């Protein structure tokens, strides 16, 4: 037999031969015998003894430990990594799980402060008799912002809207939470709370997602950790948490919070060009336009925010 005949037989055994090639094999007794030999080999190779339960558990535990130490504790992907998935999309920006409770506490604090501000503002308006158009306008805007925040959790928007300056202003300068609910939204807040505290090992929920390749402001599809069939889950909750930076101080703070060493700027630019980087945060430029970024080391004394949309450094800060 020639090498070509061996290849022919192999393709036949593997179901990769075309009709003509199959006919050639089946017409030749020697080739048919080789088919049987190769099939026997194939069957034996396929029959692998299963691993021990101990090795399986050990390997999976080691991998999950790496996940806990290196992945879950850092900011994760900002853009979709499963472009063609029809029903699930990846998150826009994820805040590490260990920051979730702190964020929630901060948001609660922020909301309480906003309510207090409205109360104080209302008292001022009453005191002044509403004769100052300028201050009234400011106070009305604050009230509107508070309403925006609460309504976002109560209204049944099907998609997450891009963050607006007003939304950013309702919370901390560098953090934003937008909660949107679909269908029956009365349970949205409860669901999110439950998800946040669902597991001590951070096996809770996911943040909201965006379609593949879309920018951070694209409409999102929810993802969760439950195994309920898609058709059975009419009420859905979507939560987007963005770490937004605008200043050098924000960048420094973000870098301080990172548990991993920033990538070298040159390496990061190369990986960015290859599309291999995932955003750790969003940089908002002077026009308020959001840009997904990663933190890079420009040199020993300088860190930078490398934007993933143009692989360029948009912001630098001295350490």
């Amino acid at each position, binding site marked *: 037999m020639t090498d070509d005949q061996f290849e022919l037989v192999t393709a036949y055994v593997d179901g990769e031969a075309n009709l003509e090639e199959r006919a050639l094999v089946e017409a030749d007794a020697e080739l048919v015998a080789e088919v049987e030999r*190769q099939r026997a080999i194939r069957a034996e190779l396929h029959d692998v003894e299963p691993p021990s339960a101990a090795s399986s558990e050990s390997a999976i535990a080691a991998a999950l430990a790496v996940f806990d130490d290196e992945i879950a504790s850092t900011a994760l992907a900002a853009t979709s990594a*499963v472009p063609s998935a029809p029903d699930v999309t990846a998150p826009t920006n994820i805040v590490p799980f260990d920051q979730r409770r702190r964020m929630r506490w901060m948001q609660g604090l922020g909301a309480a402060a906003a309510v207090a501000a409205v109360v104080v503002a209302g008292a001022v308006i009453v005191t002044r008799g509403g004769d100052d158009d300028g201050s009234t306008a400011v106070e009305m805007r604050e009230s509107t912002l508070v309403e925006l925040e609460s309504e976002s959790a109560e209204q049944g928007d099907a998609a997450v809207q891009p963050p607006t300056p007003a939304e950013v202003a309702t919370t901390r300068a560098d953090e934003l939470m937008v909660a949107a609910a679909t269908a029956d939204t009365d349970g949205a807040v409860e669901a999110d709370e439950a998800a946040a505290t669902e597991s001590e090992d951070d096996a809770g929920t996911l943040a909201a997602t965006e379609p593949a390749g879309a920018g951070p402001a694209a409409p999102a599809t929810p993802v969760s950790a439950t195994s309920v069939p898609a058709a059975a889950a009419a009420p859905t909750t979507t939560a987007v948490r963005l770490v937004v930076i605008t200043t050098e101080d924000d960048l420094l703070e973000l870098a301080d919070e990172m548990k991993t060493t920033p990538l070298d700027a040159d390496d990061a630019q190369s990986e960015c060009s290859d599309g291999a980087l995932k955003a750790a945060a969003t940089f908002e430029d002077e026009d308020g336009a959001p840009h997904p970024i990663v933190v890079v080391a420009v040199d020993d004394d300088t860190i930078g925010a490398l934007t993933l949309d143009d692989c360029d450094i948009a912001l630098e800060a001295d350490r």
Partner: protein
Amino acid sequence: VPIIDTTDDRSLVAAAQAGDRRSLDILLRRHYDKVHAVCRRIAGSSRDADDAAQEAMISIVRGLNRFDGRSAFTTWIYRIATNAALDELRKRNRRPALHVADDDGYTPEAVDPLSERTVDSVADRMAIDAALADLPEEFKAAVVLRDVCDLDYGEIAEALDIPVGTVKSRIARARTQLVRSLGNQPPVGERQSPDPRIDRSHDGPDHHD
């Protein structure tokens, strides 16, 4: 309540990429046995396979955010498993080997345990391991991905980053060599290239490259 389809790798991958530990756990458990099987066949021993499979699991976790979904998740993890097993194999080969020598320093030639074997005795796992151990790495990876993981030629080409024609050639040569090693060698002189590692003067194993 948000939804995820735990029967679908894509959904689980997306969730795991977003930080969901439970989805990652499901994914790893779902594919561990096959990853281990790849490592077992390539590394050649259960102990090395355990080590390689664990390394593969860790690599999967570390690389998960770089998985872009353009290929099947299984193709991607089998590639990782293949590389982990080959790394383990190389590490093992670098370790000092134990030699049996008499007082004069003479090392007896090992008896070929396969010399009298036929296809009927291929069930002997040691024989299979020994036959696989004799294969060049690139042949072994291709035939294991085909015969253990049931990947088609296109998927193997993607996993190994080689042309489909090369996949076909490597699998054919691997199987031919396995048949020979296990006692079903074709009559001498009828093959053009009995051992690609010895004779590559023409039509070598990667002639499709």
